[in-house]
């Protein structure tokens, strides 16, 4: 078993880390305090990210990406994940892999502008009445000649304000399954500005300041059948084949922030003196640090193993769920303990810890809640036993 990184992987880590620290960190506080990412800043940083070959590096070489294997891609995600989410997700965007599922025309129209940084994509699945239980969704589309008519509401849709289009998952039928009737789902590209499609401001949330979510409303919204991504009724098949690794992406960005928080905690423990000595000399602090480092390593190994298996074609749903679950929970623990080690200063926004702590909260909810991940893991364990 080889746990080492290749020379290329080490360079990917170093170059991405240098970019994140030099170009993104200096803007974090302003974005956190204003909750806003100004367009001029986005443009400036996009240019720099493109020059550094970091923009859309998750994509294959044919379309202008870096052509990374899964582990290399996740190492890059981890470094980006250290920074404020709005900054890295918008200014060093990684267009959704699902855009690669499009046909030639759709790739030209939707994928390429995202890679060139001219626009962003967003993915709309969740509804007020359908979160974890996506197949219970109400938004629907009915055929009308060569067109489809969309109706319904999606909410929590990330950065739909910036996106030029949405990939919308709606019900186009129902089928009987052994576990009762389930919706058949189809994915559509819907352009901003299409009559009947409205994007409203979403909610203010505790995590990832500057990174917005929106409510999408479809009212007799007419789109041509050429706008279907994949096949009719096969929306989830497209999502499952192209979005599987997003759980590993979430895990990696969490590992980046956890490592950053641990770094702060270590240096503070070595510097801060109380009762005549460095606080790191108190076992109450040093044992916390030991646990934090150990948990981080465990989470990282789960993610790396899943990445390796992903490229071998042997990864299972449980592997990816374990990686996501562990990394998001470890981040929450490390962020909390890092604040504790800093005492009162840990709560102040001069340090990135209070926001890493706030940001950690959403990670256990989106891309499948912790309960859903546990459900996936236990199902894989129990199904072969007939339970």
């Amino acid at each position: 078993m080889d746990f080492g990184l290749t020379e290329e992987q080490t360079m990917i880590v170093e170059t991405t880390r240098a970019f994140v620290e030099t170009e993104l960190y200096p803007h974090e506080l302003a974005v956190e305090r204003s909750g806003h990412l100004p367009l001029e800043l986005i443009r400036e940083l996009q240019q720099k990210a493109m020059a550094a070959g970091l923009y859309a590096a998750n994509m294959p070489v044919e379309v202008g990406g870096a052509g990374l294997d899964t582990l290399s891609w996740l190492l890059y995600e981890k470094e980006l994940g250290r920074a404020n989410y709005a900054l890295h997700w918008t200014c060093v965007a990684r267009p959704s892999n699902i855009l690669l599922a499009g046909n030639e025309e759709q790739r030209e129209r939707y994928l390429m502008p995202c890679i060139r940084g001219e626009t962003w994509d967003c993915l709309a699945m969740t509804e007020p009445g359908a979160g974890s239980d996506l197949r219970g969704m109400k938004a629907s589309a009915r055929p009308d000649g060569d067109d489809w008519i969309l109706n319904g509401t999606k909410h929590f849709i990330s950065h739909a304000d910036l996106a030029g289009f949405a990939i919308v998952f709606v019900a186009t039928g129902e089928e009987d399954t052994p576990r009762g009737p389930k919706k058949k789902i189809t994915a559509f590209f819907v352009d901003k500005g299409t009559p009947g499609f409205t994007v409203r401001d979403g909610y203010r949330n505790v995590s990832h300041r500057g990174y917005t979510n929106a409510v999408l409303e479809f009212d007799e919204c007419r789109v041509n059948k050429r706008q279907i991504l994949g096949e009719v009724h096969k929306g989830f098949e497209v999502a499952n084949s192209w979005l599987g690794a997003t759980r590993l992406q979430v895990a990696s960005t969490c590992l980046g922030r956890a490592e950053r928080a641990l770094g702060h905690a270590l240096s503070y423990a070595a510097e801060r003196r109380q009762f005549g000595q460095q606080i790191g000399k108190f076992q109450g602090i040093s044992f916390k640090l030991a646990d934090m480092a150990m948990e981080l390593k465990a989470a990282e190994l789960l993610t790396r193993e899943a990445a390796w298996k992903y490229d071998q074609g042997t990864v299972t749903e449980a592997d990816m769920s374990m990686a996501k679950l562990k990394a998001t929970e470890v981040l929450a623990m490390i962020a909390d303990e890092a604040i504790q080690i800093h005492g009162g200063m840990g709560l102040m926004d001069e340090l990135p810890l209070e926001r890493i702590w706030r940001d950690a909260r959403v990670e256990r909810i989106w891309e499948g809640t912790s309960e859903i991940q546990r459900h996936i893991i236990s199902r894989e364990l129990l199904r072969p036993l007939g339970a």
Partner: protein
Amino acid sequence: MKVLVPVKRVIDYNVKVRVKADGSGVDLANVKMSMNPFDEIAVEEAIRLKEKGLATEVVVVSIGVKQAQETLRNALAMGADRAILIEATADVHQDIEPLAVAKLLAAVVKEEGPGLVLCGKQAIDNDLNATGQMLAALLGWAQGTFVSEVALDGDAAKVTREVDGGLQQISVKLPAVLTVDLRLNEPRYASLPNIMKAKAKPLATKTPADYGVDVSPRLTVIKTAEPAGRKAGVKVGSVDELIAKLKDEAGVI
């Protein structure tokens, strides 16, 4: 015109340097190592010359331990075309002295025939500031040191040097050795697609014996010690007080 850029693997500038317990040098075991920042500037300048069509090939050379291969790959990922590694020692704590490095580089220059050698002005580990000058002397070439601007002009290079009194402009005849200073340029990030391509670029491995050069040390390190900690400064209450102190106590104005 071919440009040759020597690059040195040094302790990363962000690392808190620690002296080895026996005082024989700086502890380099399990410490992050990187390309000497001044060499990075030299690589950047060479790549820019190539991008402007003024250079045809950028060859990077490193002399040291075999791990210096990582430093060379980094230069290749920035955009250099080819690399030569001269494995001169297996001991990460052995610094190859400037004269030996200059002799090896002179031999590489004879073999490769570059029109220009771009070096960092010094390496941030020992700060000796000697290799470029020694190389120019061994080759009998013109030299320009502490360079903050380079403009190639036919068979000469117009360079701006950062000297104590300010900036000095000189013209050096090519082929020449230039040693570059901090303000020459801002090195690019090694881009991800280029990192992936770097693996396919040629990297030749040699030894000092291939060039008939003896790299055994001529200097003896007697003791390495940490510099004394700086004493805390004083806070002054006003600008007037500051001026008074500078005049009367420090005597600098």
